[in-house]
Structures are given as structure tokens and as C-alpha cells.
């Protein structure tokens, strides 16, 4: 890039380049949907107004957004804990891991939604089914990445742990977990996306309450505008969740990013 003298002008131009398309898209769809609105594509203004009415004024947040958030968090956290623990164990026991591979490969190969009816039969349509399924399906990428991450611990570090007699718990917290962290986070990012998808699907089939339930219910009753507001809220929900996760990752992996930047800066 050519150096620009005025840094304000540069950030201003950068911001403009970032902004013009989103603005154009929103403005365009506002105008277009106003003029050519069909039954299935209501005007954006109507959707926006109804979003306010249903979700903010009418308590939709507490009724459908909060339950979704809570069960996603519960399922996702369970997936992280289980995935990291199992992944660390299997990572440290390569022979066991190889012997169990047909099972782990099979479980992660199942398209998660196929397990929904089985979960329904075991746990019914309530909260347990939803959380268990979210956790079970989103656990696999975390576990597999943890296995790889734990194995990436340098052999020299293995000898350091031996010779300084680090306790198993200290090895887990201070060596294996931080060493695997970049890969664990990469797996968790995938897991979060899968978790949100599974959350919506289980809510569509489970007991009332939740974004998936709301959207499905609106669709089945041909409340098209309400359905659109649900999709909008879900979109923002997914976006914010992802942004939050990235901020968290950036904070935790501070050392990693700084190190990468440092070594790249030194080598170039």
C-alpha cells in the first residue's frame, strides 16, 4: 500500500470502502422491498417494526432468545469440557486413540441431525434432549483438534516436565492446554457454528421456547413477517456470538498472536 500522509484520511477512506456495500445493500433492499413486496418478502420496514414489537416490546427476548442462549451455552460449554478432556486423554494415549478410531471417525461422520429422533426417544422433547444433542454433536471437532494440539507439544517440553517433576494437573493446565489452545480454539469455532445449527433444529422439534421454535411455529402458521423477524434476530444472534467468541479467543491467545507477529516481524 502507498503511504498516505494523513492517517485520518487513510482510516476514513478505509472505513468508506468497508461501509459502502453494506449501506447500499440495506438501502437497496429497503427501497426494493417497499416497491415490489410479495407475500413471502414483506417490506424491510415492516420487518424492522415487527422486530421491535415482537422481540423488544412484546417480551420475545425473554421468551425465545434467552432460552436459546442459555441452552446453547450449556451445550457448548459441556462440549468444550468433554472435548478437551477426552482429546487430552486420547492425545496422550496414541495407541488407545488409534484403536478407538473407527468409533470416533463414525460418530463424527454422522450428520448430527440424524441423531435427533434417537435423542427424542431417550430424553423426550425437553431441555435435556436439546442440551445433550448440542453438546454431543459439537464436541467432535473440539476433541479431534485437541488430540492434534496435545501431540504438537515438543518432545523437549516432555523432558522438561519429566525432569522437573511437574504434577499431572500442572502439566494439563500449564503445558498441554496452552500448547493445544490455538487448535482447541479453531475446533471450538467450528463447534460453535455447528452448535447454533443444532440448537435451531432441536428447538424446531422440541418443547416451546427458543429461536428455532419461534421461526418454525411462525412458518407453520403462515406468519411470514414474524418468521422474518425470527430470522433477523437469529442472524444477529449468530453474528454477535461469533464476534464475542473471537474477542474471547483473542484475549486468551494473546501470547500466541503476539508470538506469531513477533517471529514473522523478525524473519521478514
Amino acid at each position: 500500500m502507498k503511504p498516505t500522509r494523513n492517517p485520518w484520511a487513510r482510516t476514513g477512506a478505509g472505513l468508506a470502502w468497508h461501509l459502502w456495500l453494506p449501506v447500499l445493500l440495506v438501502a437497496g433492499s429497503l427501497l426494493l422491498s417497499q416497491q415490489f413486496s410479495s407475500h413471502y418478502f414483506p417490506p424491510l420496514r415492516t420487518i424492522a417494526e415487527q422486530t421491535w414489537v415482537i422481540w423488544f416490546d412484546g417480551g420475545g427476548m425473554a421468551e425465545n432468545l434467552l432460552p436459546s442462549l442459555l441452552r446453547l451455552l450449556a451445550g457448548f460449554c459441556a462440549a468444550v469440557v468433554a472435548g478437551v478432556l477426552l482429546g487430552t486423554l486420547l492425545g496422550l494415549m496414541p495407541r488407545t486413540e488409534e484403536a478407538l478410531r473407527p468409533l470416533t471417525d463414525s460418530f463424527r461422520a454422522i450428520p448430527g441431525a440424524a441423531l435427533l429422533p434417537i435423542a427424542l426417544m431417550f430424553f423426550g422433547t425437553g431441555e435435556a434432549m436439546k442440551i445433550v444433542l448440542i453438546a454431543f454433536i459439537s464436541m467432535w471437532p473440539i476433541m479431534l483438534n485437541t488430540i492434534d494440539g496435545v501431540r504438537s507439544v515438543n518432545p523437549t517440553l516432555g523432558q522438561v516436565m519429566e525432569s522437573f517433576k511437574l504434577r499431572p494437573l500442572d502439566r494439563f493446565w500449564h503445558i498441554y492446554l496452552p500448547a493445544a489452545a490455538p487448535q482447541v480454539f479453531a475446533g471450538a469455532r467450528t463447534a460453535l457454528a455447528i452448535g447454533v445449527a443444532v440448537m435451531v433444529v432441536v428447538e424446531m422439534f422440541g418443547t416451546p421456547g427458543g429461536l428455532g421454535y419461534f421461526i418454525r411455529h411462525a412458518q407453520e402458521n403462515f406468519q411470514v413477517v414474524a418468521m422474518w423477524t425470527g430470522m433477523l434476530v437469529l442472524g444477529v444472534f449468530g453474528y454477535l456470538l461469533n464476534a464475542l467468541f473471537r474477542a474471547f479467543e483473542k484475549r486468551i491467545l494473546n501470547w500466541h498472536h503476539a508470538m506469531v507477529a513477533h517471529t514473522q516481524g523478525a524473519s521478514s
Partner: protein
Amino acid sequence: MTDTNKAAPEPLLHIDNLGFSYGEKEILRGLDAQIGTGELVCIVGPSGAGKTTLLQCLSGLRPATSGAVRFRGRPIAGPPAEMAVVFQDYSHSLMPWLSALDNVALPLKSAGLGKKERQQRALEALEEVGLAGSEQKYPWQLSGGMQQRVAIARALAYRPAVIVMDEPFASVDAQTRADLEDLTLRVRQHLDITVLLVTHDIDEAVYLSDRVMVLAGKPTTVADMITVDLGRERDQIETKADPRFAGLRSQVYRLIRRPDAADAALAASGR
């Protein structure tokens, strides 16, 4: 020539007929040596002689396939609590996600020390190696020599009776290397610690040691244990200019060069 059997009456570390094989391939055969408290012994030998393997047997990281290593009279069956290791590969022996201070303090945590004492000891150790002020830096923000200082500080903070160093200065530049050699001498003097150091550099071995253990042959045996009678005070320029230094240096060199010298030396020492 020193007769190894006449070393201190109760050696700290007793290597007794130690052997090691990788399956069929015999690496080390019948190694004998005794290392007394407070000694600095360098283990020198050609590359591929199994120096690192020997060191791993000595520090309990690898079980010997025959013979034994006794520490304070007891056979070693795992890393002893009174021993600390400094590895050659400093860039991988430090945790990049921990600050210098935390790197030094982590083994103390595992040893069950309280937070305050860990901090205190780690700070002291870092100061000892001349890293006061860099406690909060991450290893990758430090130069190679400074990283190895952190690794040495980690070993010192552990307050071991013996520090075992595996080619600790092999991957730093010459000036840093000289600095670290003098640091090792000073620390050892100051804390009265026993040091075992593996190197392939003959100058380094003679400069640092009270005694040099020369490895040679295939499979590797102890060619000789050479006493370095240059006094405890060493100086990079003066010591190395000493004619005795040159003599010792060529003595070690000849032993390493000719594997059969090992047999000659054994015969000469009357065994």
C-alpha cells in the same frame, strides 16, 4: 592421571558399569565414573557418541539397559528431585505462553511451594543469571542467550544438588557463549552446586571443568577422566593462554581422535 577410584570417599553420583542399547545397537558400554559434591565435570566426546543418551540416563529420563547410576548411594529410577536439567534446545524447553518469571516458577508450584515463595525464589534466580528486569517478558521476546539464562534460572530456582546441562551453549553465538560459560562458573562458585555439562567443544570442556570425562570408541566407553588443575578461578583470556590449558586441550583432542586411545588409557591406568 587421576585414578577414578580415589575420588571423594562418598561420591554424590556413582556411575557403575553403565550400558545402553537401542535394541541391537549398543551405544554405551561399561561406563564407570564417580562425581563428588561441588565438582564441575564436563562430558566431552565426538558427535554421535551418545552424550545426550548418557545424560538422560544420569538424570533419570531414560533407564539404562545395564549397570546403574546411584545418586547419594541410591539407584536412580526416575528424575531425582535434587537434580535439574538445562536442555540444549532452549527455544523448545521454555513455555512460550508463560513469562520468564512463570517459566521459572512453574516447577516450584509442582513442588508444592506457596505463591509468595515461588515468586521470591524465581526472582532471585533470574537476578542471579542477570535477568533482573526481564521477568515479565515472554521467551520469544528474548535473545537466544537470554532464553538459555531463563532455563538456567529455572534450574537454579529448583535448588538442586546437581545441575545437568546438555550442550547448553551449542546454539548461541561465540560472545554469548563465553558470557554463559562465565555465568555457569560464577553461579557454581556462588551456590556451591555440582554441575554436569555435556559438550562437544573441547575448549569449553577444559575451560569449565574440574575434571573432563572423555568419551570415545564404538560403542562408547570412558576413554579417560582428566583432572584440570588450573585452579578454581578461570578467565577467558588468561586461562586459555596458559600453556597447561593447551596441553590439556591436546590431550583431550588426541583421546577423542583415536578411538583405540581408550584402550591405551585403560591399560595405562592399570585396570
